[in-house]
């Protein structure tokens, strides 16, 4: 059970809200030490693993383009485009995106979304714009809630769409693993059995998005007490 100490470190660290980067590194080192490696050996293993996973960070190459376009008013444009649409509400905008993200992911087009590419520069401003088109300037907590929902729409759409595509990593992993254990399956069968869950995910998250719409409408009609609506430097971010 000794290797599990690293997991305990990670859980306690996250609960106590230490800097996650520090927590993760300490958890990794503790795990290595518990497995009987020497300190230098653990640091080398950590360095090797970190180095081999550099591809995870490549998405940040987008920052110069996104930053440049933001400076030229990209978010403002996305915001205005939606706030002028009469039928647009935050929930409906996000519901449409959820559907689009699920369908494109199911077709293998997973790179069409993402938090740096789509959510920050386009989707979140659109979702905020839809709300502001209805009731004027948003308070900071409402704005943050809308942004969090925008991020969730991207995640749910991506996770529960991609598995329907036959050539995606998850399907290949399952096929490979079953094959190692002497069970031959067709990837298409695995894909088909991802569909019921995909439909359920859309129904569940979609319903919650529309309920969120209602709550926004209720709050517009009867604003919560002023004590609940602190405004801060992030309010106009």
């Amino acid at each position: 059970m000794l290797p599990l100490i690293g997991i305990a470190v990670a859980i306690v660290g996250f609960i106590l809200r230490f800097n996650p980067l520090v927590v993760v590194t300490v958890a990794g080192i503790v795990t290595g030490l518990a497995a009987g490696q020497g300190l230098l050996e653990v640091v080398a293993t950590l360095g090797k693993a970190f180095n081999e996973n550099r591809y995870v960070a490549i998405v940040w190459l987008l920052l110069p383009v996104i930053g440049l376009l933001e400076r030229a008013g990209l978010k403002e444009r996305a915001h205005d485009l939606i706030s002028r649409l009469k039928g647009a509400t935050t929930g409906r905008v996000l519901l449409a995106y959820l559907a689009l993200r699920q369908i494109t992911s199911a077709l293998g087009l997973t790179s069409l979304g993402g938090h740096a590419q789509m959510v920050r520069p386009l989707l979140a401003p659109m979702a905020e714009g839809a709300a502001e088109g209805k009731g004027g300037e948003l308070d900071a907590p409402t704005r943050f809630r809308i942004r969090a929902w925008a991020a969730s729409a991207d995640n749910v759409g991506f996770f529960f769409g991609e598995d329907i595509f036959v050539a995606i990593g998850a399907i290949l992993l399952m096929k490979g693993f079953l094959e190692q254990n002497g069970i031959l399956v067709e990837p298409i069968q695995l894909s088909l059995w991802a569909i019921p869950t995909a439909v359920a995910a859309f129904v569940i998250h979609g319903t919650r998005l529309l309920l969120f719409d209602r709550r926004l409408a209720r709050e517009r009609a009867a604003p919560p007490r002023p004590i609940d609506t602190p405004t801060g430097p992030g309010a106009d971010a």
Partner: protein
Amino acid sequence: MIRLEAVYILMGLLVGGIAIVNLRDRDHPKRTGNALFWGLYAVSFLFGSHLPDLANGVLVLAMVGVAAARALGGGSAESTTVEERRASARRWGNRLFLPALLVPVLTLIGTFALRGVRVGGVPLVDPRQLTLVSLGVATLVALGAAMLMLRPPAATPLREARRLLDTVGWAAVLPQSLAALGALFAAAGVGTAVATLVTEWIPLDHAVVAVVTYTVGMALFTIVMGNAFAAFPVMTAGIGLPLIVGTFGGDPVIMAAIGMLSGYCGTLMTPMAANYNIVPAALLELPDQNGVIRVQFPTGVVLLVVNTVLMSLFVYRA
């Protein structure tokens, strides 16, 4: 052949440039910490492939040290005012979307079009890294297009990238660290230990109990590891194959497909899945690091119940 290494060099130049912009920003209270952190990260991208493992490890520890000392932080202010941006948005209209949409579209086209392109008998792009290399090329093309269109001062892209990256801060490195942690966990046999724990403590003498243990176990293990791909082999070797398929004669396809998706429910609920949950919170400048998880949690729980019911209904029928 264009390999991933070329994209790493590009990343190194970007992050190194961001370090320099930080260093030269005399008004920024944490400019030294920021410059040090991104400078070290640039070294990792530029030279990581040639450094010994131990040196790379020391590099990681130094970066973590800067983050731990709270020397990192503070996004810099926007370079333009809201009024300026609104005026610019009116001027450019929907043309502003073009460079932004160019990135995913070109990545997609590159992934398909560059497959099989050969120059002098060798593939132009390493076939195993088509998507990542295409993404690198797409961002360069989109940046060129945006520069031609907007004609800002030459240093603007770097300054804007710095503004965004300092907003995200250490969270930008977290997904990579978590991937490294997964490798360390795997090497230390964490997976097998968890599977042993589960199978020892739960009375798995009923077919439905096996299903519930498997789906909930997939979700919990994913919450701990931050990655359903890490949970799948462990839980499936520990419970799925021997019990659901072996003892109770369930269908392996349904078991595997819905089992993996149960893991994804866990992904919605954990800070360990940093690139989906923590990074967007930082990118969207949410005050609560767990703001995205809070919103997703109910969906994750309800969907896990649905998955468990689906598997219970169908896995033993096929």
